[in-house]
């Protein structure tokens, strides 16, 4: 109940940020929305299914590059079309990659996803003519719900219509994920996480469900990726780099992976914290490393675990 109340409060606060009129904070939050969506997916894989991917950035980058290619090469500007295209592309890539990865679990799964992420990074980096190499690819301003909004300058566009659009997509993604984790499918995934052999003996095809979770996670990752590159106007290879995947895992642990809203909290806190620490010291990575260690050792259920102390872990 506390969590639900805080959730509503947080959503209301997020709605009011642009109105409060601090464009800096508003633009700062934009990547948090994209990350939050990607993390909702990553958490279906880790929190629910028990598979930790170190290559989730692959799908975030895939979403980003889909948006870049469509806006700057194909003249597609509708953000709805971009999101849909990214989701479809991610699913198409996730099926073969997932088929290979879900044959393994634990560290082997993690290493394999890492390898695929780095493969994609190299592809983006080396195929200059196709991807723009290290310079990346421009992402042109998309059209929201058929409204061109050309009269707005960049900041006004991002802190106004786009902010609410991204928040809206995040809310929809969170609702969809909440339904997913409470569904028979979500229960089957948790059963697999808890004991795959037992789940199999109760009639759950473990590999098929793991693959389905992988594909759903990829789709959320790509949708988040599209929303991530619109504010920066650029898709570059670092989106797929392994440190980016590492950041995603960090956010997940920070927010807490056993509550479906943990990823959202993790993304927002990570972004705000990063901004605060970076303005204080150039050694922000050092500080973040210490924070990660403290979280893992003392708060294994993340920030959400602190808010929701009564709840049994991993329920």
């Amino acid at each position, binding site marked *: 109940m506390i969590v639900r109340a805080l959730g509503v409060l947080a959503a209301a606060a997020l709605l009011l940020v642009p109105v409060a009129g601090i464009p800096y904070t508003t633009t700062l939050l934009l990547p948090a929305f994209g990350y939050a969506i990607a993390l909702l997916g990553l958490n279906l894989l880790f929190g629910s299914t028990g598979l930790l991917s170190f290559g989730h950035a692959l799908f975030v980058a895939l979403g980003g590059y889909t948006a870049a290619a469509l806006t700057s090469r194909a003249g597609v500007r509708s953000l709805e079309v971009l999101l849909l295209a990214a989701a479809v592309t991610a699913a198409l890539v996730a099926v073969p990659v997932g088929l290979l990865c879900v044959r393994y679990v634990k560290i082997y799964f993690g290493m394999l996803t890492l390898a695929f992420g780095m493969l994609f990074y190299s592809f983006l980096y080396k195929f200059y003519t196709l991807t723009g190499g290290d310079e990346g690819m421009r992402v042109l301003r998309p059209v929201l719900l058929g409204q061109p909004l050309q009269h707005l300058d960049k900041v006004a566009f991002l802190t106004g219509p786009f902010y609410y659009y991204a928040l809206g997509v995040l809310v929809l993604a969170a609702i969809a994920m909440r339904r997913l984790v409470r*569904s028979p499918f979500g229960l089957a995934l948790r059963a697999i996480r808890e004991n795959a*052999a037992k789940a199999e003996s109760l*009639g759950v095809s473990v590999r098929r469900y793991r693959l389905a979770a992988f594909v759903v996670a990829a789709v959320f990752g790509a949708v988040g990726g599209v929303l991530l590159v619109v504010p920066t106007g650029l898709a570059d290879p670092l989106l797929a780099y392994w440190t980016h995947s590492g950041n995603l895992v960090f956010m997940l642990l920070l927010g807490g992976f056993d509550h479906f809203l943990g990823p959202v909290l993790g993304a927002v806190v990570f972004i705000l914290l990063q901004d605060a620490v970076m303005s204080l010291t150039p050694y922000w990575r050092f500080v973040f490393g210490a924070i990660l260690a403290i979280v893992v050792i003392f708060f294994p259920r993340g920030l959400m675990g602190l808010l929701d102390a009564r709840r049994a872990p991993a*329920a």
Partner: protein
Amino acid sequence: MTALLEADDVRKFYGDTCALDGVSLRVDAGEFVSIIGPNGAGKTTLVNVLTGLTPPSSGRVRFKGVDVAGAGPVRLARLGMARSFQLVTIFPALSVADTLAVAELARRGRSARPFSAVSRDREVRAAVEDVAALFGLGDKLERSARTLPQGDKKLLDVASAFALRPEVILMDEPTSGVSTADKTVIMETLVRAARRMGIRAIVQVEHDMDIVFAYSHRIVALHQGRVLADATPDAIRADADVVATVLGIAKTQGRTEPGRV
């Protein structure tokens, strides 16, 4: 009449080791069959082969006339066969209700539904409550499996297999790892549940000879991967050969390893 479950000259090699050396057996509807034998006789391997988990090196396994050798647990669950494991096999973080719901949903082909809430499925909920009540877990539905006492964990393990409403259930030592007092409770509970739920045959691997003789219609004694005897409890007791090689050993084991899990 076709047997419900039938193994025909099954052999299983692990490298050079021969775990099963030409085992044949049949289980008919209405039977309670116990598989006994000393450690390493091949009992668990036989259960794994019968439940499709391990493909046999040669020979046939038929369930309701269908060849199911190496078919895998998911397909067998769908065909109507379930199993429980030797060690307590549960979903530690899931509640009793959720554990049983996994099986109830799978049985109805609803596991893959992505958007309907488990908690709103009244039919599944009612079925879960029925099964839980049969196994004396009715007042523990919302407890997570890891917090249950050992005897209840064992019951939950078996109950979830029963929730598939199989025609045949194979249990690898359903009473291992629980106290002697709990053993009888567990056996009584699951025999009663099997009758109520319309389970047609039970096959169990068991070390406790008191339980084996009290409940079995037929006993299959394995020794070094072969069937040493396949007969009624009375005939087994009268068989000096079996008493010496299997019961002798098994009884000693029961006494020298009381903490065996």
